[in-house]
């Protein structure tokens, strides 16, 4: 587990498997095979191992000391929030273009998992900010745009919950998801112009080697868990949609 390349190959293989599985899910295959359970179990194992390594194996962070270990939750959740909402936006466009109900289910489940991930991101961020910046919250572009984005996606979930008609609900959710993504981007730029304070984004070059490996391990662990949650939630959404579907048309009666 000490070789970053091995880790990368491992992760890439997992992502490819999950993507293939997701594609086959969209195309209607693999209905009964609960592939996501294996991805989830793998992710759970990885998250346990990754967090253990983050807490006990990783060296102390140079600037922040022991507090820095929260990075192994904070940074993966930040990556995953962005990744999940990017996919939400892609699913939403896919729904508006194709009208396929599976994309609506994917939009719904990815928003829910994304919101959870964003909340995790902000809670760990606040805990992290208090000892390093001395405050729980700072008016930094990334903080503000994350908060705004969370708020808009929560708004979309509430909009979704008040609509009864499945067709309308699906279209409006996708419209809201695209708006929320756009708003996140513009908010980020506007707040960056408004005020900049955050430390420069840490690239793998600026942190030490063992940290990179452990960060990546945790990121992939979060990725697999997210894929598991989204796939599981999508199955529930599909099952609900099927339950809502009208019974077969009654037979023809001659007049």
């Amino acid at each position, binding site marked *: 587990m000490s070789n970053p390349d091995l880790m990368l190959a491992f992760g890439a293989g997992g992502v490819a498997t999950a993507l293939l599985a997701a594609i086959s899910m969209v195309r209607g295959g693999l209905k009964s095979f609960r592939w996501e359970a294996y991805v989830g179990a793998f992710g759970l194992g990885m998250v346990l191992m990754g967090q253990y390594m983050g807490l006990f194996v990783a060296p102390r962070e140079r600037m922040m000391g022991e507090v820095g270990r929260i990075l192994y939750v904070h940074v993966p959740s930040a990556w995953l929030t962005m990744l999940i909402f990017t996919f939400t936006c892609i699913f939403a466009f896919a729904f508006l273009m194709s009208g396929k109900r599976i994309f609506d289910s994917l939009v719904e489940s990815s928003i829910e998992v994304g919101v959870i991930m964003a909340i995790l991101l902000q809670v760990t961020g606040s805990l992290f900010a208090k000892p390093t910046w001395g405050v729980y919250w700072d008016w930094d572009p990334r903080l503000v745009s994350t908060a705004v984005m969370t708020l808009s996606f929560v708004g979309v979930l509430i909009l979704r919950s008040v609509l*009864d*008609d*499945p*067709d309308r609900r699906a279209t409006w959710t996708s419209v809201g998801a695209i708006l929320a993504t756009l708003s996140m981007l513009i908010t980020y730029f506007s707040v960056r112009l408004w005020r900049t304070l955050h430390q420069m984004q840490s690239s793998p070059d600026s942190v030490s080697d063992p940290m990179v490996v452990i960060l990546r391990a945790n990121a992939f662990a979060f990725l697999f868990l997210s894929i598991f949650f989204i796939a599981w939630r999508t199955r529930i959404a599909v099952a609900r949609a099927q339950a*809502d*579907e*009208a*019974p077969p*048309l*009654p037979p*023809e*009666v*001659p*007049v």
Partner: protein
Amino acid sequence: MASTPDSHNAVVHDGLVVHDLSRRFGPRWVLARVGFDVPPGDALLVVGHNGCGKTTLLRCLATALKIHHGSARFGGLDMWENRAELRHKVALLSHDSHLYEDLSARQNLDVWAKMGGLHKDLDALLERVGLEHTGKRPVRAFSAGMRRRLALARVLLKDPSLILFDEPFSALDPAGRATVAGVLQELRERGATILLSTHHHEIGARFADQAMRMKEGRIVWKGPSHELLSSGGHP
């Protein structure tokens, strides 16, 4: 005209051809396998109790609602696929008047004409429905009958070749009914295809030779409208 279920493919006229049309709301089929046809320039009377699916049928044919199963064709075109084009030719006179409460009768016609890019003699139209003396009064101050007349004038702005009338005689005094009946007669003479849903069987039968009765989203009877009258509405 009444086509049997398996002979729909034989219907080749350019009027309204509805085949197996079904629509659901949530888990319920409110229209199930409705099939009929109206040759161009003909009129069909649709009767049935409240909640039998008449309004949904008319809204599907007006392209306000998506058809979930089956098809409706007008002028040889599938109505939902070609809705952008057909909306120029099809008009719906429904319970919703589609009027702006703050505008006067003439202003309402004016804004709808402008929004549709239509050019019509608005004063003549107002006179046709007997609203030429309402001046600047906003629609908010109109009676139900006056609103219905104005809604009719609005529909006439567009010269529709298929008109769907949903209870056009309700809430009208005898004079109002006579106005609507006059307009209906005029539209028939101009060659428009008409679908008329009403509880006033006698007036309806004057314009439509054919009739059908609906119940629980289905057609339960089709035949000449005089049979509907002679049987007291329950053939």
